[in-house]
C-alpha cells in the first residue's frame, strides 16, 4: 500500500509561489481546492514533470520522479502518469482510438487497437472510436481524455478541472463514472478544482490552497468539521460532511432514513436506493442549537450532542460551534448573543436541530 502512495513536497518563492506537502494513498481521491491563480495546475504539472519548481520531491508507484536534493528528475514520458487536462488537450488530427493508441506505446503493436477499444468502452464510448475530437461533444471528449490517461496504466491519475467545460447534467454523470472508476483503479487520484461540488462528490481527502500555500490538508470529513477555517468559511461557507447509509424509505412520508455515525437523520427522498452509501453535507448556517429537545415543530431531526469546540474568527460576528454527535462532528454557525444566552462552552450538552430539507445529499 505504502509503495503505491503518492508523496509530494514542493517549495519555491517565485515566480509561482509554492509551499505544499501532501501524500495520497492508492484508492484515495485528493482534491486540491482553491481560487484560480492559486497554483493548483502548477502542482499537477510538477507531479507530471512538466514543470520544475526550485525544490521538489515527488514519489509515486514506488519510484522517485523528482528529487531536487538528489538531482533526480525523470522527464514526463518516463513517469507513469495519467493526466486529464482542463480543455482535454486531445490530438486534433487523430481519431478517438488514435488518441488512446498514442498512449499505448508500452504495449505490443498488435494489441494496441483492441486495448484502445476496451478503454473507450470502459468510459462508455464504444461507438465513437473513429471520430475526431471536433466531431465529439464536450462530455465525449472528456471521456476520450480519460481513456487516454488510463491507457498508460498510470501510477497516478491527475485531473485538472475535469468538469469545467461540460454542463451540469453531464457533469453529474461524469462525476459518478469517475467515482466508480477510482474504486476499481486502486491508484492515487489527484483532482484540481475550483468547484466545491466536485470536492464533496468525489474527494476522500482535501487540500485547501491559497496563493500556492497549503492552508489545510486532511481527510475530507475531518477537515470539513473544523470550525477554524475562515478562508473556507468565506469561500463556500462551513458545513460538515460525512457518509451515511440509506437505511429505510418512507414513501408515504416522502422521506428516507439515513443512518450515520451519530444516529439517524430524516431527509427528503430523492430517489435514493435503500442500502446505498451517500455523502451528506450539513451547512453550518442551517443548524439551530437548543438547550432542550423541542416539541411542536415541523422539524424532523433533533440530534443530542456535546459541544467540542467554540471558534470565533476575528472581525466576524457569528461564532462557529462544533458539536460531537456520536462519531460525527457537526458545525453550527450562531450569533454571539446565542452563545451567551445558552451559556455555550466546551462540554455543554445540547440538541442540534436540522431541517430535513437543509440536508444536502450528494
Amino acid at each position, binding site marked *: 500500500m505504502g509503495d503505491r502512495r503518492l508523496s509530494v513536497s514542493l517549495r519555491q518563492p517565485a515566480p509561482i509561489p509554492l509551499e505544499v506537502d501532501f501524500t495520497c494513498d492508492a484508492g484515495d481521491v485528493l482534491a486540491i481546492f482553491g481560487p484560480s491563480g492559486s497554483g493548483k495546475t502548477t502542482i499537477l504539472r510538477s507531479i507530471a514533470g512538466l514543470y520544475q519548481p526550485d525544490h521538489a520531491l515527488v514519489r509515486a508507484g514506488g519510484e522517485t520522479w523528482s528529487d531536487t536534493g538528489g538531482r533526480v528528475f525523470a522527464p514526463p514520458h518516463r513517469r507513469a502518469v495519467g493526466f486529464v487536462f482542463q480543455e482535454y488537450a486531445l490530438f*486534433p488530427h487523430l481519431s478517438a482510438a488514435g488518441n488512446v493508441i498514442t498512449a499505448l506505446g508500452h504495449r505490443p503493436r498488435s494489441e494496441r487497437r483492441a486495448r484502445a477499444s476496451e478503454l473507450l468502452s470502459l468510459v462508455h464510448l464504444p461507438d465513437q472510436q473513429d471520430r475526431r475530437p471536433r466531431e465529439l461533444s464536450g462530455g465525449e471528449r472528456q471521456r476520450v481524455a480519460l481513456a487516454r490517461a488510463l491507457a498508460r496504466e498510470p501510477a497516478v491519475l491527475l485531473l485538472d478541472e475535469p468538469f469545467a467545460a461540460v454542463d451540469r447534467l453531464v457533469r453529474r454523470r461524469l462525476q459518478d463514472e469517475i467515482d466508480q472508476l477510482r474504486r476499481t483503479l486502486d491508484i492515487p487520484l489527484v483532482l484540481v478544482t475550483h468547484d466545491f461540488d466536485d470536492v464533496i462528490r468525489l474527494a476522500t481527502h482535501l487540500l485547501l490552497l491559497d496563493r500556492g500555500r497549503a492552508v489545510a490538508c486532511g481527510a475530507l470529513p475531518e477537515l470539513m468539521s473544523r470550525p477554524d477555517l475562515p478562508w473556507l468559511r468565506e469561500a463556500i461557507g462551513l458545513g460538515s460532511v460525512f457518509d451515511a447509509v440509506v437505511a429505510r424509505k418512507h414513501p408515504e412520508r416522502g422521506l428516507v432514513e439515513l443512518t450515520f455515525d451519530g444516529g439517524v437523520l430524516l431527509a427528503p427522498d430523492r430517489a435514493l436506493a435503500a442500502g446505498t452509501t451517500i455523502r451528506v453535507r450539513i451547512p453550518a448556517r442551517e443548524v439551530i442549537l437548543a438547550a432542550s429537545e423541542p416539541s411542536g415543530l415541523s422539524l424532523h431531526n433533533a440530534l443530542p450532542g456535546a459541544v467540542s469546540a467554540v471558534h470565533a474568527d476575528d472581525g466576524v460576528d457569528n461564532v462557529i460551534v462544533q458539536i460531537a454527535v456520536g462519531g460525527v462532528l457537526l458545525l453550527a454557525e450562531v450569533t454571539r448573543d446565542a452563545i451567551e444566552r445558552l451559556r455555550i462552552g466546551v462540554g455543554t450538552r445540547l440538541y442540534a436541530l436540522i431541517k430535513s430539507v437543509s440536508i444536502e445529499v450528494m
Partner: protein
Amino acid sequence: MDWDALRVSLWLGAGTIALLLPWGIWFGRLLAVREFRGKLLVEALVTVPLVLPPTVLGFYLLVAFGVRSPLGKAFQAVAGQPLPFSFEGLLVASAIANIPFVVQPIQRGFEAIPLDVRDASACCGLTPWQRFVRIEAPLAWPGILTAAILTFAHTLGEFGVVLMVGGNLPGETRTLSVAIYDRMQAFDDRSAGVMAAALLAIAVATLMATTTLARRVGRRRG
C-alpha cells in the same frame, strides 16, 4: 525559351528547399516553444533578409564567399573552385535569402499548437522525437508546407542576389528571372515574353497548389 535557365531555376528552388527546410523546422520550432534571452534579437536577425535590398545582401554574401574569407577558403579547399559565380554559391546565397520565408511560417505553425497538447503528448509516454513526428509535425504541417512553397516561389523570382552572387553564367547560374533581363537587354522581347509568361504560370500554379493543400488540411482538421 532558355530551357537551361528554367532548369537552373527549378533546381535552385528544389535545392533551396532541401537545404533550408530541415534547419528551418528545427529553428522555427525552437523559436516557437522556447523562451530565452536575446530571442527578440534572433527573431530580428531572421527577418533581416526580408527588408534588406537584395543588392546589400548579395554584397555581404560575396564578401563572405570570397577567397579571403574563411568560408570561401574552406570551400575552395574542398571543392577546388571558388564559391561565387557557381551553382553551389548561388544555392547557399538563396538559402540565406530565404531564411525568413522558411522560419516564420514554421514558427507560426508550431506556435499554434496549444501547450496542453504538447504536454499531453509527453504524458502519453512519447519521447521527444516521437512527439515531434507523431503530434507536432502533423499539426504544424500547414506552416511547413507554406514555408516550402513560399521558398520555391521566392527562389524562382529572386533577381538581385542571384545577379550579385551568381553572375550570369549560362547553364550554371543564369536563372529564368536573370535570363528575362538578359533577353530584354538584347531587345529579344519575344523570348523575354515567353519566359515571363512561364514564370507567371509557375507562380500561379504554385499558389493554387498551396491554397488547395491548405484547404484540404483545414477540412481534415476542422
